[in-house]
């Protein structure tokens, strides 16, 4: 799996930090993830009320690292990685920051006039 280094330290967008899942031992991988999580907490000033909450958020963070890598594969022209929402599950993300009511425009909604676009 690959993780965007610029996502973690905000410095150099050209450096990509790669963690080789096949060669790395599980303890090395865990250590790398813990390091990324520490940087994340420091960058976004995150703190958690209890060790239990901290451990849960770490597990969510690890899942989001994998999710970011999937997004990177599906969306190669953008950079995906760690953001301020990396400790939120997709459901929490939807609940906390998205808020578009179900769309059903009324039949009598004004339609903008068609504008000329050729000149």
């Amino acid at each position, binding site marked *: 799996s690959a993780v965007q280094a610029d996502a973690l330290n905000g410095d150099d967008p050209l450096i990509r930090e790669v963690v080789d899942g096949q060669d790395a031992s599980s303890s090395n991988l865990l250590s790398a993830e813990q390091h990324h999580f520490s940087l994340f907490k420091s960058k976004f000033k995150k703190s958690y009320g209890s060790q239990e909450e901290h451990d849960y958020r770490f597990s969510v963070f690890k899942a989001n690292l994998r999710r970011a890598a999937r997004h990177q594969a599906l969306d190669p022209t953008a950079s995906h990685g760690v953001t301020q929402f990396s400790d939120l599950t997709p459901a929490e993300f939807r609940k906390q920051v*998205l*808020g578009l009511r179900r769309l059903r425009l009324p039949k009598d909604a004004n339609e903008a006039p068609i504008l000329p676009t050729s000149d």
Partner: protein
Amino acid sequence: LPEDFDWRDKGAVGPVKNQGSCGSCWSFSATGALEGAHFLATGELVSLSEQQLVDCDHECDPEEPDSCDSGCNGGLMNSAFEYTFKAGGLMREEDYPYTGTDRGTCKFDKNKVAARVANFSVVSLDEDQIAANLVKNGPLAVAINAVFMQTYIGGVSCPYICSRRLDHGVLLVGYGSAGYSPIRMKDKPYWIIKNSWGEKWGENGFYKICRGRNVCGVDSMVSTVAAVQTTSQ
């Protein structure tokens, strides 16, 4: 239509705001559009109050009375324009500041209205029409599917697959013709989107998404608003 266009260069877009942990994106999208329209009408860029919409706008869908604008639980930009039109306008951000909660009561003061809605309309799905309305009328309120935005850092987002189920309200402020795509080895045209998740998110708070095939539903719900000239008090 110009090949590239950006309302940020013309002074119609204010600083990026932060909605916090509150599903009030719809209010930021609506205020952003009205801020731009007010700029076009008066030449003055005024930051408008999202909290007024969060606290006071409970406008419902005329065909679905149970579906209403509801503070941090969500809303719709068109309904926000309808409320603003009926209420008489929006106050300045400084007169009715954002708190990030919807537990307060409505403190709208009609004597402190800073911008009024003259009219608003929905723009057709056609991307050239969206661009034309953007150039002619100012920044547009748009809806999008935000699934790729949770992990977005920068560049032109152009996912191979993205749901068109709209769940986030944002502001369309411009477009570009040449976002370089290293994988596809070609320039990609893109929309420039202002988000409301602070400047630390994305490209200083902005998002670029490719044009051409209604990616993540970005062309599906586009609204334009016009402001009336108002002398603020």
